[in-house]
């Protein structure tokens, strides 16, 4: 009898629930103005998220997946990425997409049911939202392979949920990334729920980070509601990836404070107490407390910020509502680089149908 493998999963946290530092924050988080900038992004993102929910409720947007409660995760990861890195998001990374430079108008168009919303002006190389759970994990392997082949110092970042870790494609991708030591960071946004299925029904694994052991790749857990910790862990993983050290799996612990989507009613399957308790751990207040304590932030600034966020969000919503409706041509004109002759009659027929058929903003 011999032991042929030993593995440990580390977990990282800097700020406690009240925003007090549990240990000295890392060098990359010592500049208060940087943290203030990230804090502003988090608040704007939540403001935008609330607007999306409001638009949906009033029939002006399609089904929407709120990201409330995971702003530290998204902004932490987003702030660790460089401009020409490649993000492969799910439907719950609206905040991270904002951090990458996708515009509110584009995001509104997308969730309003219009493909033009995925034709980002910036960043041109990021992937659109992936709805089919974990399919994009395999795409990320291809992106990272291409980056490595061309010897670029770029990184692919693939975000998925706790539920997504049960899909075979996630494992095929982890394994491929490990085999070729690709510049790829997988971030599991473990928000404890996959629609109505709680984390413990999803897997008997004690942590989701340990799934990386199967592929022989470095794996770590982090408090996903602690901006400083997420950013630090992400920076480490990105640096490893960028310098040829290969992939990392990051499990970021957070909580889905909202319903799964606007089509879901989470009170059917989970306890109000659990949600109330989770609100205690939400990331924005925690970082605010830390900044207030540090003297880097004050009440007046907070009020000004909320006002400005509100204005930006309103302006974006208005631009969205004013946006011209899509033409039926949209179904044909980017099907192929050039429409094959076989479909041209169909295009004509579709154009002949009244454009008024295009649904309103509610989708």
């Amino acid at each position: 009898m011999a032991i042929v493998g030993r593995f440990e999963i580390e977990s990282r946290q800097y700020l406690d629930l009240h925003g007090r530092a549990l240990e000295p924050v890392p060098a990359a988080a010592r500049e208060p103005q940087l943290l203030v900038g990230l804090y502003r992004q988090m608040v704007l993102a939540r403001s935008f998220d609330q607007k999306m929910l409001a638009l949906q409720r009033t029939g002006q947007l399609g089904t929407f997946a709120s990201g409330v409660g995971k702003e530290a995760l998204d902004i932490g990861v987003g702030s660790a990425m460089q401009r020409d890195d490649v993000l492969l998001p799910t439907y719950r990374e609206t905040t991270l997409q904002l951090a990458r430079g996708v515009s509110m108008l584009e995001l509104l168009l997308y969730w309003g049911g219009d493909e033009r919303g995925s034709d980002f002006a910036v960043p041109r190389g990021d992937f659109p939202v992936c709805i089919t759970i974990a399919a994009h994990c395999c795409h990320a392997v291809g992106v990272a392979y291409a980056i490595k082949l061309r010897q670029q110092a770029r990184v692919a970042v693939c975000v998925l949920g706790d539920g997504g870790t049960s899909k075979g494609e996630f494992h095929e991708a982890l394994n491929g990334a490990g085999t070729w030591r690709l510049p790829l960071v997988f971030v599991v946004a473990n928000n404890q729920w996959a629609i109505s299925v709680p984390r413990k029904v999803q897997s008997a694994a004690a942590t989701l980070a340990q799934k990386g052991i199967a592929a022989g790749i470095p794996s770590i857990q982090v408090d996903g509601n602690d901006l400083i910790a997420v950013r630090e862990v992400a920076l480490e993983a990105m640096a490893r990836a960028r310098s040829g050290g290969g992939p990392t799996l990051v499990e970021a612990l957070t909580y889905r404070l909202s319903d799964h989507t606007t089509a879901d009613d989470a009170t059917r399957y989970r306890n109000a107490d659990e949600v109330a308790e989770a609100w205690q751990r939400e990331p924005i207040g925690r970082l605010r407390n830390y900044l207030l304590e540090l003297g880097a932030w004050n009440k007046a600034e907070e009020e000004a910020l909320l006002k400005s966020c509100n204005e930006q969000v309103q302006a974006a919503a208005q631009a969205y509502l004013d946006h011209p409706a899509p033409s039926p041509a949209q179904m044909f004109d980017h099907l192929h680089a050039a429409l094959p002759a076989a479909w041209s009659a169909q295009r004509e027929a579709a154009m002949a149908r009244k454009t008024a058929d295009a649904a309103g903003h509610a989708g």
Partner: protein
Amino acid sequence: MPQVTLVEAVNMALTRAMSEDAGVVVLGEDVGVDGGVFRATLGLLERFGPQRVIDTPLAEQLITGMAIGMAVEGLKPVAEIQFSGFAYICIDQVLNHAGRMRHRTQGRLSCPMVLRTPCGAGIHPPEHHSESPDAMFAHVPGIRVVYPSSPRRAYGLLLAAIRDPDPVVFLEPTRLYRLFKEEVDDDAKALTLDTCFTLREGSDITLVAWGAMVHDTLQAAQRLEQEGVFAEVIDVATLRPLDMDTILASVAKTGRCVIVTEAARSGSFAAEIAANLAEHGLLSLFAPIARVAAYDVVVPLSRLENVYLPDTERILAAVRKCLAFG
């Protein structure tokens, strides 16, 4: 008799099947406490317990593959795939395993399972929730493919599918889940598989449809009647094996046929029906066979969904062209 929606009829059939046979189990994502995202499995957990109403991890290959294993081992699994866009991944297990187990072992093992999935477009959901994989499943040997279009047929056909000793892919028209109600008697009576249903008799033209398009086709037939045109409307109901006899007999009578599908036109199941007509019913035809289908494009996001989908107007246009012929 209760007036129920199609999704409620599915629920009634599941409840009935689970009550009468302890071997019937239901599995899938969110089928337990949530009762399924469309509530098709509502109340089953309370009634039959978590051993038989199984919330699975998020893994469609597992769901399909484990249903196969359960069926081979003697259970009668009814697996749910949450939306049809996530059912493409299941084709592999259905084709390479479910449909072959009996043949491969020359009858030693069998695979009495049902794979249910909502199917089709029209509810303006996010991407991948509006797919029509019916033609692909209908090409798989060793399985049945059933696609009801009303609460009553959903009830009777689902019972038949569950009791069938072989694998059945059961497609449910999402758009019709709550569109209308019908009286459904919970009488445990299964309908016959492998047969089309003639929903409306008529002498002037045969309209063939399945799933949600049956609804629009019936509406077109009503409109035509007002114009003095009598359309026979056939609900295919079982796509594999296909009951061509009923369709051929109808076309022999009417001489004209329009086939309606909401799938993208090329390679859709409408082609199989048209091909059979061209092979076995050519002499009856007074006019070309028309297919009304979605365009050969990606199902668009919700803003253009209405333009993409065939509707009563497009059916009527095809019928008029067909009637005007010759």
